[in-house]
């Protein structure tokens, strides 16, 4: 479809000055500091993708080193310590530094384009995620410089990685570096959720959004629920390793299996967190290259959502050999088998689409076909290991290594390559070589099987995973050599891809706006897209706007007048449209923040804090805290463009135009806070479950002499929690009415409530005289109390910001946003506080 035709008449009546001013408002900053001040999604996502791909190459090099070592029996190319570091870092890199960040980068780049909006809802958060991720990744890799790379496995089982058996810093690098990368991933996930639900082209109803967006929505929700247990788990592990607690120390009543549960509650959804986006990519590619819409959009969406739900119900199939009960094994076997069904629906959804379409076999489709074959084999071997008795042979053997490489390379890497061949012309403006693409595909496809197929056999011939060498004569020698040859062949395939990209950047043919005859909105923008995307707001009338609509403009639609100010506007600030979730009717305009270095500075602050945690260095910690706080202050300081937005929209208030959303359910910040509260709820569930899991141990619970404090203190604590939430509620209302006296009163009352809480907490803790370092009960209590204090600290920070606003500009609605969000957090804090009190003080009487 011709781009000119799609937008014909859109610019009518808009002056050139206006259009230029609009472009200026969205331009990324240049100059020396432009690099760190840029926050537009396109340049940030481009860097994000490059960084992710570099980590992919690094992880690949590690894999080649391992294959060299294992090519022959009793090889001495790598010693055991180095090998352990390499396999740990290979897994960690591919999982946390390549797949998740890379997918999020692709989503950050594409989603605004696919959804027809101008940027992500929280561009500063995007930038923060990017920088945090880069620093976290470099932090992890820096460990190689000291020869202290993590060596306890990407799954970091305890007690092997407790302080007693792993006293050096290797696994601290892992714990801390990983936490950094996880925080980045969760930030990006929060953003994806809000973007997909709230920032779409008008008319793109929930039943019209592209399947890739559906897939990313489910993925992002899974990241929120899945990564939280891992963050809680790694925090516990790090506390154990610092000698502060004993969650996982068996001698102190701790439970090694608690770690496995926390890890796999994350770890299994993680597999689908990586796979579901691939479902989205494949669905887009299959539709365009079959020249027809997907056969059943509804079934595909249902299958994606079902996969997301089911993936949380089968974590324990990673623990079939730990001695679970028969009931548990039967249940988790059933769950592991059931998840095959949504996958089957997806698989046949694509086949049916190809079947009834007119397939065009270009490189992207070739990679999709490779995906179908490889993932099919991986899925089938996955069903096999879902059967407990067989798993008892296959588990932790090379059979499993083969299985998950079929799933991950087949189910993630091949679709990603399909997506790259499909979308890179949009990103770079140039086509990749089709010929080189075919070579690239066939090399990767053939050598993939050469490398990984034999591992099924090696594993069932008895070769365990994670061994740095093996004796000759067990029947593994030739198979391992074949795998090594295959690995190098596969690497050659990846090198061909890199060569293709470099070639295309120099010599590739101009892509034009729409080289593939695509159906989604990104093909209506220039290649590469301008910083100022969607100068004109597209109006969508179906699932495949470019196939079904002759024009994308708002002309003649119900919303023509409503959207008029947004056509090539606003011009002095960055404005984007917010729609309602289901019907996608225009609801409000939001101010999108402009260039700022605050995210970069904050990421530096995080890095310092984490380095301080690693080295236990107080001065470094203080420096990191100061830097982070400075960045936080800058973040919440009003941007001049925000004031302009407020003035302009206020002037334009005539009842017939869109309001400017600043606070409350219409604003993005509100939804961001809601997602954050979901994270906290999940974390609370984790610490409470850990408490009860540990309580099942052999020792008395609570140990004699602790856990009973009488009624007065807990009752007082509960009353103070409720009071604080009520005061925050009142404060928010007072701010809204700009009642200065009431605000002051509320501040004093809050202060008193806070001090009261500190006093009660400290008294209770001292009366208990627990020793978390030597006793699992103390650790579990500390986990609950520590969680609550963390929530309170976040709340306190938000309240301080809200109060500063109230003090400086009591009438500014931007201050209300912070107060509004702080109020939400305070309601949560009260609830979680009551839960914690209940667990600590009531449960001993019930159990």
């Amino acid at each position, binding site marked *: *479809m011709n781009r000119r035709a799609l937008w014909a008449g859109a610019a009518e009546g808009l002056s050139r000055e206006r259009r230029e001013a609009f472009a200026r408002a969205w331009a990324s900053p240049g100059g020396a500091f432009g690099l760190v001040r840029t926050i537009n999604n396109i340049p940030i996502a481009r860097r994000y993708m490059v960084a992710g791909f570099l980590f992919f190459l690094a992880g690949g090099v590690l894999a080649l080193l391992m294959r060299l070592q294992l090519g022959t029996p009793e090889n001495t190319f790598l010693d*055991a310590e180095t090998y352990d570091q390499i396999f740990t870092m290979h897994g960690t890199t591919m999982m946390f530094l390549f797949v998740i960040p890379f997918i999020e980068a692709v989503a950050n780049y594409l989603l605004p384009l696919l959804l027809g909006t101008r940027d992500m809802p929280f561009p500063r958060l995007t930038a923060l995620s990017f920088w945090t991720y880069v620093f976290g990744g470099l932090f992890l890799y820096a460990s190689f410089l000291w020869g202290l790379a993590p060596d306890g496995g990407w799954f970091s*089982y305890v*007690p*092997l990685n407790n302080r007693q058996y792993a006293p050096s810093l290797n696994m601290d690098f892992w714990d801390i570096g990983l936490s950094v990368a996880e925080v980045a991933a969760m930030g990006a996930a929060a953003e994806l959720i809000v973007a997909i639900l709230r920032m779409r082209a008008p008319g793109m109803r929930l039943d019209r959004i592209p399947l890739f967006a559906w897939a990313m929505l489910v993925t992002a929700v899974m990241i929120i629920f899945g990564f939280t247990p891992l963050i809680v788990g790694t925090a516990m592990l790090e506390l154990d390793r610092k000698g502060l607690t004993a969650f996982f120390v*068996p001698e102190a009543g701790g439970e*090694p*299996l608690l770690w496995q549960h926390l890890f796999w509650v994350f770890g299994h959804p993680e597999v689908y967190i990586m796979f579901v986006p691939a479902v989205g990519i494949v669905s887009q590619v299959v539709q365009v290259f079959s*020249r*027809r*819409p997907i*056969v*059943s959009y509804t*079934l595909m969406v249902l299958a994606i959502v079902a996969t997301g739900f089911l993936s949380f119900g089968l974590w324990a199939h990673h623990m079939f*050999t730990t*001695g679970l009960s028969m009931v548990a094994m*039967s249940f988790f076997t059933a769950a592991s*088998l059931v998840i095959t069904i949504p996958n089957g*629906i997806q*698989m*046949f*959804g694509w*086949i*049916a689409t*190809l*079947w009834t379409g*007119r*397939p065009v076999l*270009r490189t992207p489709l070739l990679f999709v076909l490779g995906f179908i074959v490889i993932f*099919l*084999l991986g899925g089938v071997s996955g*069903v096999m290991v879902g*059967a*407990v*008795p*067989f798993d*008892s*042979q296959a*588990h*932790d*053997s090379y059979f499993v290594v083969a299985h998950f490489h079929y799933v991950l390379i087949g189910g993630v890497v091949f679709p990603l390559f399909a997506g790259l061949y499909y979308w890179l012309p949009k990103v770079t403006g140039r086509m990749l070589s089709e010929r080189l693409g075919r070579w690239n595909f066939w090399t990767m496809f053939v050598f993939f099987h*050469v490398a990984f197929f*034999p591992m099924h056999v090696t594993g*069932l*011939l*008895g*070769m*365990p995973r*994670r061994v740095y060498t093996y004796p000759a004569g*067990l*029947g593994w020698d*030739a198979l391992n*050599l*074949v795998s090594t*040859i295959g690995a190098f062949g596969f690497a050659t395939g990846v090198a061909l891809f890199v060569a293709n990209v470099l070639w295309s950047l120099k010599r590739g043919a101009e892509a034009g706006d729409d*080289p*593939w*005859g695509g*159906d989604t909105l990104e093909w209506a923008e220039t290649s590469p897209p301008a910083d100022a995307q969607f100068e004109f707001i597209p109006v969508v009338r179906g699932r495949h706007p470019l*196939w079904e609509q002759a024009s994308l403009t708002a002309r003649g639609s119900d919303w023509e007048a409503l959207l008029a100010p947004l056509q090539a506007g606003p011009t002095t600030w960055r404005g984007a449209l917010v729609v309602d979730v289901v019907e996608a009717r225009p609801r409000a305009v939001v101010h999108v923040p402009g260039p700022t270095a605050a995210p970069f500075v904050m990421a530096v602050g995080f890095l310092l804090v984490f380095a301080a945690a690693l080295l236990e260095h107080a001065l470094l910690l203080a420096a990191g805290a100061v830097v982070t706080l400075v960045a936080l202050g800058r973040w919440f300081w009003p941007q001049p463009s925000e004031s302009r937005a407020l003035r302009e929209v206020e002037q334009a208030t005539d009842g017939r135009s869109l309001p400017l959303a600043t606070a409350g359910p219409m604003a993005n910040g509100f939804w961001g806070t809601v997602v954050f509260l979901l994270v906290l709820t999940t974390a609370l569930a984790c610490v409470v479950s850990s408490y009860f899991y540990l309580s099942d141990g052999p020792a008395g619970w609570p140990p004699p002499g602790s856990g009973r404090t009488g009624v007065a203190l807990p009752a007082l604590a509960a009353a103070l929690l409720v009071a604080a939430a009520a005061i925050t509620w009142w404060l928010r209302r007072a701010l809204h009415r700009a009642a200065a006296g009431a605000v002051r009163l509320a501040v004093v009352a809050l202060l008193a409530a806070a001090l009261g809480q500190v006093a009660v907490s400290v008294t209770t803790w001292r009366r208990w005289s627990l020793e978390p370092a030597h006793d699992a009960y103390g650790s579990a209590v500390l986990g609950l109390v520590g969680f609550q204090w963390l929530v309170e600290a976040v709340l306190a920070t938000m309240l301080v910001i809200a109060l500063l606003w109230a003090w400086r500009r009591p009438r500014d609605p931007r201050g209300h946003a912070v107060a509004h969000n702080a109020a939400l957090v305070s309601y949560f804090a009260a609830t979680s506080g009551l839960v914690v009190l209940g667990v600590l003080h009531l449960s001993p009487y019930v159990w």
Partner: protein
Amino acid sequence: MRAPIRRAAAALAIAAGGALPLGGCAGPQSAFAPAGPAAAHIATLWWAMLAAATVVCIVVVAATVYALLRRRGAAPPDAASPAARDERADERGTRAILLAGAVVPALILTALYVATLVVLRVTAPGAAPADLVVEVEGRQYWWAVRYPGRDGASPVVTANELHIPVGRRVEVRLRAADVIHSFWVPRLHGKTDLIPGRVNVTWLQADSAGVYRGQCAEFCGVQHARMAFTVVALPEARFAAWLAGQRAPAPAPASPAAREGLAVFLARCASCHAIRGTPARGRLGPDLTHLASRRTLAAGTLSNTRGHLAGWIANPQVIKRGALMPRVPLTPRELRALLAYLEGLR
């Protein structure tokens, strides 16, 4: 130089051949070559699943290829937008998706689930009463093996070798002294983890006399790769004789060199190793009472020869770096004496 090339050629031939060479399925640690009822049941399940999986894969790949070739190239890649939606094709397609993607898999999976539960039941440790109990404790990086004494008899303690009577159901109780390990003898049964603070139970039964190799299957630290063991299945009578032999205290040193060796042992080794019948009571390393009767040294790392034993004692860290046995400096004379003594521990 030539050997690797020949090996590479052989490997390529295998790869080119495609199918796995069935002759290569028998190995000392191969789950394809079951030697006991548990492993046999699992192998049957495996072959059944493999057959079903092969059919499924062939059908799906064939469908994909056919779907692709059916009307390939009917449209040039830059064709104008596709024709209006073909609702009839959508409807039929949806039905096909539900049938092939949900109904058929559900049937196959139900059959598989039933089969799984049946095999799970017959391979579970509690399925039948055991004839003999053995306790195995996993340690970084070796296995302590203990036969509890029945009727007041003293227990038998050994390391890295289990002996079991042929045709008898042997219950194995698994504990871990330090970190998590996993007990795996692929020819006899699947694996079971050893977890600190718990006792897990599995069972072994061998149909015929033989030596079956096992190995730790859970990453347990730097020498996880060299934490193997052997299960020796003996006919009933020979098993009883073996057990009686192991129950006896160590033989007294027979030569002057061996007597000197015992003195060296007591002075330099006894804080970690025990030898029943001597004052050596160490608990950190393996019990060495009948060391000379064992097949391997250092948990399956070396065959038990005089040369290997000498090398191992002289510097364990060269052979198994990171093992917890330190290098104990000995003079050549002390080493020779020690070897003379240890070789007599039949």
